[in-house]
């Protein structure tokens, strides 16, 4: 509270190219805790700016901070720092240190918003920081190779951060979380990134919702994390041999609901993940809506729509401990004589052909051939290769709205 009061009462310093203060470095040096720096329109060729006191740095008409590829631009080591409305370009690329446009180290109460970051290595880098906000930033890189590119928003050992309404494209991972808990990621757009649109590692109790992940190397990866809520996101056109909308690896107790997976090579790729509830998701025209690899236990799939996927579900084992109930399957061929909206015969979503394709990927070319349909039909009548308890016993006759 004391800090907040200082913010309100602090004075304002104006920085422009013809002003008394014509560099940001000078401005920071002259300012006192709680002051506001007004950076006016112009190009400032500066880097390695250390913000070590609570300051608000506001760009007027998006001034440009050009790092000339020499190194890091802002390093924030104080609490309650705001960086708003700047355009930061030409962050130095290094193989030894992770240079960022804005790095926040061991600080609280930060606010990074309305900035444009271009020609960058790392974008916004949080290191052991918490209670902050990253909003409305536009981050766009021109990353070509994974080894010499960084992440758009990198969150490491941090807590209680809101990441909202940002657009991230052309970097390695759009948004990256490692050892970070209670992070809220909402309404961001993450597109055309080399690797993942969003990447979780060892991060628990996080929420992400209403984000769009499009055309990323491999969609969203959630690994080694617990209690993640994933709601209302849109995953589309993540295409390629090792590409998917969402990759789940060693995840437990998560909820995945109301997401849309559209035209991905694989909608969700699940490996060793348990106790996950999948509800009201839409799987539309994916190559594989859901691919289950390895042991996955006690997962529940309920009220999802599976629409026109080449394969709705693929398993690589004969065992099933997951529950499929009350989903809509567009290729369900049963009937509903008692008119209760639920198909009278169970639906078996795993085709034998998906096993064949898992084994010999080239056989995919025989998709939709009459021969395969006959084989699939006979397998459906008497399962030999597919888990015989894997069936939706209450397939819906109409789409879930």
């Amino acid at each position, binding site marked *: 509270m004391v800090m907040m009061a200082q913010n309100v009462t602090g004075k304002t310093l104006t920085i422009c190219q013809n002003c008394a203060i014509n560099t940001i470095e000078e401005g920071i040096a002259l300012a006192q805790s709680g002051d506001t720096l007004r950076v006016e329109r112009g190009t400032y060729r500066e880097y390695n700016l250390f913000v070590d006191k609570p300051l608000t740095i506001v760009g007027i008409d998006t001034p440009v901070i050009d790092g000339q590829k020499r190194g890091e631009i802002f390093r924030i080591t104080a609490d309650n720092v705001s960086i708003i409305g700047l355009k930061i370009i030409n962050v130095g690329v290094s193989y030894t240190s992770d240079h960022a446009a804005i790095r926040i180290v061991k600080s609280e109460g930060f606010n990074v918003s309305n900035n444009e970051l271009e020609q960058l290595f790392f974008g916004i880098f949080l290191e052991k920081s918490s209670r902050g906000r990253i909003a409305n930033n536009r981050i766009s890189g021109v990353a070509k190779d994974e080894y010499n590119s960084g992440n758009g928003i990198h969150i490491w050992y941090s807590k209680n951060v809101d990441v909202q309404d940002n657009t991230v494209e052309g970097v390695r991972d759009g948004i990256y979380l490692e050892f970070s808990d209670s992070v809220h990621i909402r309404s961001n757009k993450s597109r055309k990134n080399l690797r993942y649109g969003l990447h979780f590692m060892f991060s628990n109790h996080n929420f992400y919702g209403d984000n769009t992940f499009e055309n990323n190397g491999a969609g969203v990866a959630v690994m080694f994390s617990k209690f993640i809520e994933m709601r209302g996101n849109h995953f589309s056109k993540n295409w390629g041999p090792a590409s998917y909308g969402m990759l789940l690896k060693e995840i437990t107790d998560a909820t995945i609901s109301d997401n849309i997976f559209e035209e991905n090579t694989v909608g969700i790729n699940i490996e060793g993940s348990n106790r996950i509830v999948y509800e009201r998701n839409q799987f539309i025209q994916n190559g594989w809506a859901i691919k289950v690899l390895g042991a996955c236990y006690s997962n529940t799939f309920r009220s999802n729509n599976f629409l026109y996927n080449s394969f709705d579900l693929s398993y690589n084992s004969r065992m099933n401990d997951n529950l499929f109930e009350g989903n809509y399957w567009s290729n369900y061929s049963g009937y509903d004589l008692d008119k209760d909206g639920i198909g009278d015969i169970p639906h078996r979503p795993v085709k034998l052909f998906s096993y064949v394709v898992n084994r010999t990927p*080239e056989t995919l*070319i025989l998709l939709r051939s009459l021969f395969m349909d006959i084989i699939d039909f006979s397998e459906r009548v008497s399962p030999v290769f597919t888990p015989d308890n894997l069936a939706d016993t209450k397939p819906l006759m109409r789409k879930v709205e």
Partner: protein
Amino acid sequence: MLKILKYSFYDLLRSRWAYAYFLFYLILGFVLLFLNGDLSKAVITLMNLIIILVPLISTIFGVMYFYSSREFTELLLAQPVRRDAIFLGQYLGITGTLASGLLLGLGIPFVAYGLFQSNEIYDFITLIVSGLALTFIFTGLAFNIAVRNENRIRGFGYAVLLWLFMAVVYDGLFLLTLIIFEEYPLDHFSLSATVFNPIDLSRILILLKLDISALLGYTGAVFKNFLGTKSGIFISCLALLSWIVIPLWTFMRKSRKKDF
């Protein structure tokens, strides 16, 4: 030749088969669309159906028509008419009838349902184009069988076998080969095996529309180049075209030499 075509048409329009074929598609189209109310589902169902049904019907009708128009052929052969004109006219007569049955039978319900206002129009065009190509291909193959076999029972037998082979057995052998030789790079083999069967070829055209997401999961570069680009569609269409032209050419060659 136009005269022959006219009378072939005339003759076919008198037989109930042509109408049955048309009505079948018409009813199928309406049932799929108006009972289900889902345009893309209807298109997918039809695609699966058409690549199997069109070859079957075209082969059977082709053989049947060639045998049943034997009298007509003999009557014309003694007239001052070019031989090529007679046979080409008959080929176009039957393919034209089957093609318009398909086109109108499916076109009417889809247009009535509002095809032109939907995104599925390109899928529908793919469906119709491959359906028409298969009609021409399998009628041509059927005529080849019929012109070489005086014995009708045998001709019908070969026609059904041809269909069975192309629609089912071929893919079985294809699959078996892929599994047996899975350690080897199979890209080129798969592509050529596909090109050598018109049913597989039209299936690929349909896959390119419906299952592109799955196909992009392929690791092989050859496939990616083929499937991911316009040239894939172009080569497929070219192959379909040669499947039309070559059987027609061998049929015409045989019919020129045939004794009546």
